[in-house]
């Protein structure tokens, strides 16, 4: 790549050189002759003024920023999937005012049409009786939810957020490729893209009159907030959970809009009303942004195998006690088969012609259309009729690409059960510039445009979620297949007033807490704390045991054996293994898939954190990620156990520091802390029992101080070699030593008194009584009397405390689908 560091003229960049549209394909930035279109010129010249070096740096920072905010999506190329960083294109898509007017009007029209369609199909079904739609086009859709037939959604609307996927066809017009009515995704990513790119290119963003996004979200938020009864949990974002590919966005939107993020497990339906299980009991919830596909919403009336919904939600909807945005059943309008009928539907339902054309589609359930599709098979793509039009392209067959036998099979299938297929015109989409392999190349793209229903009608988000293909083949536009996303800058004809989601100063009510804490979130915070602390204890054991590798002393060997026994008890070692072996020590540290290794505890902590990512600082999440990398044998494979252990302990200390300094010390923090304190207490008791009670030698007591991270405190207080009584006092009874058992119990007592339901006028819970009793015992005992029996009693009491907390506040049961024929 040629690399002039200063640009001379308008487009002096190396990476701009030689940008040419694909032959015969319209490009958004450049005309056929390579000339830059007028509405791109200001942007490109501002970019040019930055100079290539500066620009590179900015984009580098943008990538880092996105990584730091944890912007991810889940890719399903491995079982369970894994998260990938969010790929954002360096250039926005610029949208001229004229194009945008056309798109806005067209998208609002479609939103109105889809709303009317759903009203009819779940209501009087006149479209069927009058033959506008064949009955089977509705009956064949898995999103036609029969339990909702005849149910008018509360508030009267099916759709509150609608989106259309658009592409520009060869005729220069914007075409609708698909409708999104189930729970349109991507608006949160669009926001994230905007924040990232406008921060990277403030000059360009400022030089152009770009419509802001915040106003749209503000109004969307207000219109939803008006749906929730006051006094309840407010609007909730209902997510399928962290395994969903767009979970990051659910958490992000919840945080941005100030709504509570809930999973089906958080919900309880009683007397056909919906409640959120919080640590302070059930709280009413009646308005949801639904990101859970409707079929999974209620195992009682929809998919009985769903483990992510809430039993009774459909009854609650039928009783008019809950509003879903969008209503259960709205996914019906996404059906591909319907694309062929939209022209007729617009005329019938709205008395209008469609402003934006559809990609031409023929449903093969009608003899004539099917015969026409077969006749021109080579010019068409054949797709399943009832998958959403937005679904992946993997199940689409391109007529022209089929060999003889496959073509014959397809024709046979079309003849036999045409109802299951549509034929679609293959549209070659226009391209936009995308950064790839060190230069700009033209790539086909689609843009998703959002409309929200408000009191005053539909409003359109002035921007969009743009996805570009990772090859010149326009059929490959999917994040799942490695495409890029780009910010969309809608240019205004006049100056744009800056706006932000922040309300005017005077309207802000001062708050010291953030809404309800769901029991599930509390449970995950509690276990996040416990697993972090468990990982720390395991690592300390491995490090202490492994360090004694070279010591050939009888006492030290006994210490090493005692430590190995503790690790065997935790599951990190298998019986007969010894830490003296470097490979064994490494396996105890990084072994994955074996319950009890340090890596396993970190993985469990990370899983728990993933369910509450909207409640944890992004620095905590990224440090936990770094910790997981440190214990990943594939990352820096040559690093030795000692080095890994040291690094992991430093990161654990950093996480503890971030939690202590960055998290408001409210109920959620208390659950996290209680998890940590209980687990640390248990670990200390294990250490004391093995090295200070069962056997006590100079070697074991100094190992005990090392494990309890109290060697320095001891040395400062006592100028003698470790002796049993002072060591036990320091690690068991000194409630000023943050590693001592008594310290954990003191802290647990302080937190237990502040738990929900522990007010002065209420009777103390079991958890509270347990911890008070323990505190009293710790105060009463002398170091000399600490024996195996005492250690075992305290240990049992801590475990009982953990159970009592779970029983009272947390989620502690599995949910099973009832099976009528149990397999034996």
């Amino acid at each position: 790549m040629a690399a002039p560091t200063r640009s001379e003229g308008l487009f002096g960049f190396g990476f701009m050189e030689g940008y040419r549209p694909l032959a015969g394909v319209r490009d958004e930035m450049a005309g056929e002759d390579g000339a830059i279109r007028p509405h791109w010129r200001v942007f490109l010249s501002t970019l040019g003024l930055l100079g290539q070096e500066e620009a590179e740096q900015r984009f580098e920072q943008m990538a880092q920023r996105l990584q730091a905010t944890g912007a991810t999506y889940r890719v399903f190329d491995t079982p369970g999937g894994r998260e990938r960083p969010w790929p954002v294109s360096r250039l926005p898509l610029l949208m001229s005012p004229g194009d945008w007017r056309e798109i806005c009007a067209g998208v609002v029209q479609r939103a109105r049409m889809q709303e009317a369609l759903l009203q009819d199909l779940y209501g009087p079904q006149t479209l069927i009786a009058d033959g506008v739609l064949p009955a089977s086009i509705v009956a064949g859709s898995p999103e036609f939810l029969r339990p909702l037939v005849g149910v008018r959604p509360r508030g009267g609307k099916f759709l509150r957020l609608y989106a259309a996927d658009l592409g520009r066809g060869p005729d220069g017009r914007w075409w609708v490729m698909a409708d999104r009515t189930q729970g349109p995704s991507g608006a949160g990513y669009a926001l994230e893209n905007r924040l990232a790119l406008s921060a990277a290119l403030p000059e360009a963003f400022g030089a152009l009159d770009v419509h802001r996004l915040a106003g749209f979200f503000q109004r969307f938020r207000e219109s939803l907030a008006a749906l929730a009864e006051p006094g309840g949990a407010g609007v909730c974002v209902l997510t399928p959970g962290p395994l969903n590919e767009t979970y990051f966005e659910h958490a992000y939107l919840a945080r941005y809009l100030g709504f509570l993020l809930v999973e089906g497990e958080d919900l309880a339906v009683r007397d056909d009303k919906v409640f959120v299980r919080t640590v302070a009991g059930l709280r009413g919830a009646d308005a949801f942004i639904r990101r859970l596909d409707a079929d999974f919403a209620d195992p009682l009336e929809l998919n009985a195998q769903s483990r992510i919904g809430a039993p009774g939600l459909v009854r609650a909807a039928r009783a008019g006690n809950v509003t879903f945005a969008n209503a259960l059943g709205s996914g019906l309008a996404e059906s591909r088969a319907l694309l062929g009928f939209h022209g007729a539907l617009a005329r019938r339902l709205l008395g209008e012609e469609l402003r934006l054309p559809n990609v031409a589609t023929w449903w093969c359930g009608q003899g004539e259309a099917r015969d026409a599709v077969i006749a021109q098979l080579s010019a068409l793509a054949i797709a399943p009729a009832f998958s959403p039009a937005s679904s992946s392209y993997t199940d689409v067959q391109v007529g022209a690409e089929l060999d003889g036998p496959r073509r014959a099979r397809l024709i046979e299938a079309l003849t036999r059960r045409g109802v299951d297929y549509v034929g679609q015109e293959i549209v070659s989409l226009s391209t936009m510039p995308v950064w790839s392999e060190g230069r700009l190349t033209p790539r086909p793209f689609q843009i998703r445009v959002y409309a929200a229903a408000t009191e005053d009608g539909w409003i359109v988000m002035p921007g969009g979620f743009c996805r570009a293909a990772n090859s010149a083949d326009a059929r490959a536009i999917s994040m799942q297949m490695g495409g890029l996303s780009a910010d969309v800058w809608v240019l205004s004809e006049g100056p744009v007033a800056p706006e932000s989601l922040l309300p005017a100063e005077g309207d802000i009510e001062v708050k010291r807490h953030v809404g309800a804490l769901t029991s599930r979130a509390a449970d995950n915070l509690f276990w996040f704390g416990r697993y972090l602390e468990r990982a720390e204890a395991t690592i300390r054991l491995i490090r202490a045991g492994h360090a004694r590798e070279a010591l050939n002393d009888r006492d030290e060997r006994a210490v090493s054996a005692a430590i190995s026994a503790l690790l065997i008890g935790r599951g990190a070692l298998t019986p007969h293994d010894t830490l003296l072996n470097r490979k064994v020590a490494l396996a105890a540290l990084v072994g994955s898939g074996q319950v009890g290794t340090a890596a396993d505890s970190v993985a469990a902590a990370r899983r728990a954190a993933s369910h509450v990512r909207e409640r944890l600082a992004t620095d905590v999440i990224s440090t936990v990620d770094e910790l997981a990398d440190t214990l990943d044998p594939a990352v820096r494979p040559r690093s030795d156990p000692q080095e890994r252990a040291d690094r992991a302990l430093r990161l654990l200390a950093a996480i503890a520091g971030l939690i202590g300094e960055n998290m408001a010390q409210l109920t959620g923090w208390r659950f996290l802390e209680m998890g940590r304190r209980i687990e640390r207490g248990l670990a200390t008791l294990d250490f004391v029992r093995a090295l200070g009670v069962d056997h006590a030698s100079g070697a074991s007591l100094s190992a005990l101080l090392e494990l309890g991270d109290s060697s320095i405190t001891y040395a400062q207080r006592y100028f003698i070699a470790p002796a049993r009584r002072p060591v036990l006092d320091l690690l068991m009874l000194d409630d000023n030593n943050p590693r001592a058992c008594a310290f954990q119990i003191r802290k647990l007592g302080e937190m237990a008194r502040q738990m929900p339901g522990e007010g002065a006028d209420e009777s103390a819970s079991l958890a509270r009584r347990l911890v008070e009793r323990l505190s009293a015992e710790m105060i009463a005992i002398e170091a000399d009397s600490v024996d195996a029996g005492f250690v075992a009693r305290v240990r049992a009491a801590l475990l009982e405390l953990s159970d009592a907390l779970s029983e009272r506040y947390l989620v502690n049961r599995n949910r099973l689908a009832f099976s009528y024929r149990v397999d034996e």
Partner: protein
Amino acid sequence: MIYDIRLVTLSTYDDYVPFARHVLRLSPMNTTRQSVLSSSLSVEPASSELLPGRDFFGNRTVGVVCSEPHHSFIARASARVEVAAPAPIGATPPWEEVAGLALAVRDLSPEAPAHFLFPSRVAPLSDAIRAYAEQSFPPGRPIAEAVTDLMRRIHADFAYDGDATNVSTLPEEAFALKRGVCQDFAHVMIAGLRGLGVPAAYVSGFLRTLPPPGEARREGADAMHAWVMAWCGPAAGWFAVDPTNALVVGEEHVVAAIGRDYADVAPIDGVIFTAGAQRAVEVAVDMAPAA
């Protein structure tokens, strides 16, 4: 013919269940040839709340909310039902004509053929089953004759075997095994008919426990039974056949619920909250002519 039907199901759990919700579809429904003279239903824990309702297909459902901790759940249903033998199906149009008519009906009401044309949750389509079914459907054959032939072939080619399959066995697996229970036979037949474009429904219900004097013992009478209805055009309507016993449904079958497949009409389903697992379900059913 008047029958008395009694049914008891008992499900037990490893650990206590503090909360559960169920949907029961255990009670016979009124149809054109079947009228329920009396019926009753009770459950244990007796404190459970019962929420009677109807589903989309018109089946009687009872929602159950158990908020009392329990180790077992018992449902008892009884009914007295009068059943009339259906009129003989008579002459029906060629099956291809019926498949075409099914697409032309402008109706989405619960009995409309359109609902029963497509793959459903636990009855997906299968090329293998369709090819098997096709042998009963030569061009121009009257639909009822073809359906009856397919029912007889399934009965002849498949072995009734309660151990070969389980509640989640897909029709294609049961078809490969050529074994299963009434649920599997019904799903195989449904997948075959729909593959050919013939609307087919799943029926759950009761079968007379002891056959009429002089006839062979029936399979599937000791639990809730399942059979199939095929749509034979607007004039003839729905035609019910029992592939497990090679019987055209007459006076020996009592309908509890009709749906697209087992998932629509499962006698009991629901969600239980527990730390343990669900153990076996025991079912006892008795259907005898009223004394």
